[in-house]
């Protein structure tokens, strides 16, 4: 069976819809992973020992196991405890939590590197510890980690392909569905790859813009 790319236009609408879902899931999971990352970082650094230590163990497990395995756990695990989430939501939670852990690592390092004097200065003007964290330390730390978090978000886009395995109709699964009808895996997977590549390039472009802006505002 040779290659025949002329078949593509007929199914382009399905692929484009999948593309939209991929962008949607990436954005939703990115937002979750960003705020989740900040929350996780604060817990890992400042929560009482009894919470902090088990939490770190869980973080460590998330970093030491494959995302695909974690997606299976979340998707089937939630069903088992009686929560039947739509695949899309399970996918966003799985991706979002996975990358929240990676973001948390970055943010923890950044918080620790924010000058100690900043916290002290905030306390001397009368802010409480949590106010000082919220208003002074975390904003500085987050600004410092935006470029590496950008790298994580680009990785998230590519890993979003994995949620096809738990039945989210994003780009990869849409390509699979079309292939099921046409038996043309090469053409449609290449097409899907091309779409991923274009979205990836766009994200890299945005990342460079943001990095430039940050480096100017400093």
């Amino acid at each position: 069976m040779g290659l025949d790319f002329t078949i593509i236009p007929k199914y382009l609408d399905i692929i484009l819809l999948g593309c939209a879902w991929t962008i949607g899931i990436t954005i939703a999971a990115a937002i979750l992973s960003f705020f989740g990352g900040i929350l996780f970082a604060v817990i890992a650094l400042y929560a009482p020992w009894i919470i902090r230590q088990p939490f770190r163990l869980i973080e460590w497990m998330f970093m030491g196991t494959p995302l695909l395995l974690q997606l299976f756990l979340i998707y089937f695990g939630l069903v088992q405890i009686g929560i039947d989430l739509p695949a899309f939501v399970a996918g966003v939670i799985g991706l979002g939590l996975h990358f929240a852990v990676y973001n948390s690592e970055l943010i923890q390092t950044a918080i620790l590197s924010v000058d100690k004097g900043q916290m002290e200065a905030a306390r001397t003007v009368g802010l409480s510890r949590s106010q000082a964290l919220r208003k002074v330390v975390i904003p500085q730390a987050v600004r410092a980690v935006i470029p590496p978090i950008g790298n994580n978000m680009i990785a998230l886009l590519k890993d979003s392909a994995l949620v096809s395995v738990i039945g989210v109709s994003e780009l990869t699964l849409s390509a699979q569905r079309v292939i099921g009808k046409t038996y043309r895996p090469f053409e449609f997977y290449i097409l899907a790859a091309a779409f991923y590549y274009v979205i990836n390039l766009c994200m890299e472009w945005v990342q460079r813009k943001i990095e430039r802006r940050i480096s100017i505002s400093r």
Partner: protein
Amino acid sequence: MDIDLMLKVYPFFLEAAWVTIQLSVLTAILGLICGTAGAAARLSRFALVRFIGAAYVSVFRGTPALIQLFILYFGGPQIGIQLDAFEAGVIGLGINAGAYMTETIRGAIISIDNGQREAARTLGLSQWQAVYRIILPQAARLMVRPLGVNLNMLIKATALVAAISVIELTYTAQRYIGSTYKPFEMFLLAGVLYMVIIYVVGRGVAWLDRKVQIN
């Protein structure tokens, strides 16, 4: 937690872990070969070769490894490439890992001070002699740690071959989740094995890193 069930199925997980180790080793070897070739291409004095190297890195890092795997395994037969799932897994993941390793290796090489190359060339060493006698021995020491990070990512990426039905750890976990409805137990079994593999490899990398440092 269903300990009895875990005790009953763990031998299958051990067997699957062995497949994951084989996949990781073969993928790492292929990745290193591709990464070395990629770095050489990116540092070539011919613009066309440099472009090919840059395109390899950009395309393989810019698209999902899962899709690359599907193109090779499902699309391959259309262009005359017939591979079984394990072979496709190793080749697909190896080429993908090679793109990341290209940047690691290249980064280490270009971080060696240009004075080293100049000193070697003024003694009369050829370009190639300067590279393999002076630049590479120094760059190799800088590569160990970042290549360790690549290796860590690569081990976790071997889970993707579950999607083309290679019976490794993640596939095994998925199958037993489906048949036992005990996702937490199965996750724990597979997760612990992954972490053991990653821990051992991490210690190995740290040991190597200490060993190669000058003095």
